[in-house]
């Protein structure tokens, strides 16, 4: 997980201007000012190839899949099925059977909480999450724990936004039935030591779900290397369309789980007396899937393959580090989330300045940041703040945009303090 800092040469060689041309929205304006899009942790922008894929699909390919013998259905099915293999390769899963198409990270976690939870959680059992989870990795577990009378336990974090592995290890017990942990925090930027955490959990035979909504966007993830039991992420944060995401699950885990939703596609045979379910992954994909967006997600994966992902991630790291450094120099600015291993996200507050006022002022300058709790209310509770201002970077951002943000923050302090 150690990041090698990109050399100056490397940064200079990373051709961000060429990359930006692939993203049509980046040359638009906001309130008449050139758009500076620093809200990537909420949703990424899309390259032209992904947009074009949707057009091509609906203009020449659209049909319901798998059940049709006709030409369009065939072509659409083929492209759809190919994406499963693309995603398998993208995260190095052992089999395409381990790739389940869902709406997004939230649905992926709900699926596991519901299917795994109803099967494996009983009164007194424990589910372990961390103090920095997104609501989507808290509420599904709260709901299933309430239903099954299980207990939700929380791994604490320190004031830099880091988990202590010792504290974590001491929370793993024979009662722990699953650990569900965020790979990269969307409000703090912390990159957790998930590989080590998985090793510790597996030593006690406890399966681990990794929320990689942010992680997949800023790291090369290899599920076999991580050895996670489940991995969840969203297409819309990784250059893909909205409405599609991935649940990876080890074959054995998926086989053991009961189905989630019922309906078309997920069955093998239906009668009023007895219904049998399809094999994995189809068992978990009820109804007409989001065909077009799955296919366009495949194009997003292709796009990632077409660029030097490691260089892109190092470049993002450079933007993040530089932004943090410059912000920290501004009197009155306090960074929230200062873990030693971080990715993409810079969260901060300004003394005596309302975060939303500042965000809105930056917006008048065309700078899009997010303000608030970022769906991590417990993080804000721990830091005793109502919310933060968050800038989050993708490889299509530039150092000039970092500087624009810094200037904007300075102006905001001048106006609002």
């Amino acid at each position, binding site marked *: 997980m150690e990041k090698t800092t990109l050399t100056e040469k490397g940064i200079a060689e990373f051709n961000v201007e060429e990359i930006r041309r692939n993203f049509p929205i980046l040359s638009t304006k906001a*309130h*008449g*000012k050139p758009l500076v899009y620093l809200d990537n942790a909420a949703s990424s922008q899309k390259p032209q190839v992904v947009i074009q894929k949707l057009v091509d699909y609906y203009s020449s390919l659209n049909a319901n899949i798998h059940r049709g013998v006709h030409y369009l259905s065939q072509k659409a099915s083929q492209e759809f099925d190919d994406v499963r293999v693309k995603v398998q390769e993208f995260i190095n899963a052992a089999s395409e059977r381990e790739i389940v198409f869902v709406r997004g990270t939230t649905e992926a976690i709900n699926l596991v909480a519901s299917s795994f939870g109803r099967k494996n959680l009983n009164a007194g059992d424990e589910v372990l999450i961390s103090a920095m989870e997104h609501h989507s990795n808290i509420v599904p577990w709260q709901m299933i724990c309430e239903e099954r009378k299980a207990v939700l336990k929380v791994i604490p974090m320190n004031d830099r936004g880091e988990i202590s592995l010792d504290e974590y290890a001491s929370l793993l017990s024979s009662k722990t039935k699953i650990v569900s942990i965020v790979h990269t925090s969307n409000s703090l930027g912390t990159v957790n030591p998930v590989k080590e955490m998985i090793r510790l959990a597996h030593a006690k035979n406890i399966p681990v779900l990794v929320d990689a909504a942010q992680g997949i966007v800023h790291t090369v993830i290899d599920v076999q290397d991580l050895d996670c039991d489940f991995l969840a992420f969203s297409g819309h944060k990784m250059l893909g369309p909205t409405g599609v995401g991935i649940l990876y699950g080890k074959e054995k885990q998926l086989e053991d789980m009961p189905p989630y939703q019922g309906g078309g596609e997920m069955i093998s045979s239906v009668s009023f007396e007895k219904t049998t379910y399809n094999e994995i992954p189809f068992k978990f994909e009820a109804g007409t899937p989001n065909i077009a967006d799955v296919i366009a997600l495949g194009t997003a994966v292709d796009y990632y393959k077409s660029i030097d992902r490691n260089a892109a991630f190092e470049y993002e790291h450079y933007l993040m580090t530089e932004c943090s450094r410059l912000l920290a120099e501004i009197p009155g600015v306090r960074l929230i989330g200062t873990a030693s291993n971080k990715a993409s996200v810079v969260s901060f507050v300004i003394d005596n300045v*309302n975060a*939303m*006022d500042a965000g*809105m*002022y930056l917006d*008048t*300058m065309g700078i899009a940041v997010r303000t608030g709790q970022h769906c991590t209310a417990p993080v804000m509770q721990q830091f005793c703040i*109502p919310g933060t201002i968050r800038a989050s970077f993708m490889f299509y951002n530039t150092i000039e945009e970092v500087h624009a943000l810094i200037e904007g923050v300075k102006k905001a302090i001048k*106006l*609002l303090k």
Partner: protein
Amino acid sequence: MSVLDLEKEIIEDFELFDEWEEKYQYIIEIGQKLPPLDDKYKLDENKIKGCQSSVWLHAYAKDGLVYFEADSDSTFVKGEIALLIKVLSGQPAAEVVNAPLAFIDTIGLRQHIAVTRANGLSSMIKQMKLYAVGMNSKQ
């Protein structure tokens, strides 16, 4: 001055600015000048629901006119309130109830703020008008 004249004054003030950034700065400046609300009025019952920021509104009647005082943790919201207070505070209740408040659209406020904030603004206006309706019926 009448509600309409006051609205016109605000519209003229904002005509000085081309850009949303400048208008925003102006609203902030107005907000910063809004006198703070006495802490004793910062009660839960005076809190306006539907605003993302905390907003307290205190209203009272004097000599047949309606007066408003308000506060918020957001300076921008204070600026919005200050504009509303400028137009509505010290007016006869009936005037408040019937105030068109078209200036909000004219100066481009609603067009530039987020839906959630626009809903907050609507809640504020609704609350002010409700007070006035109540006072009107008492008179």
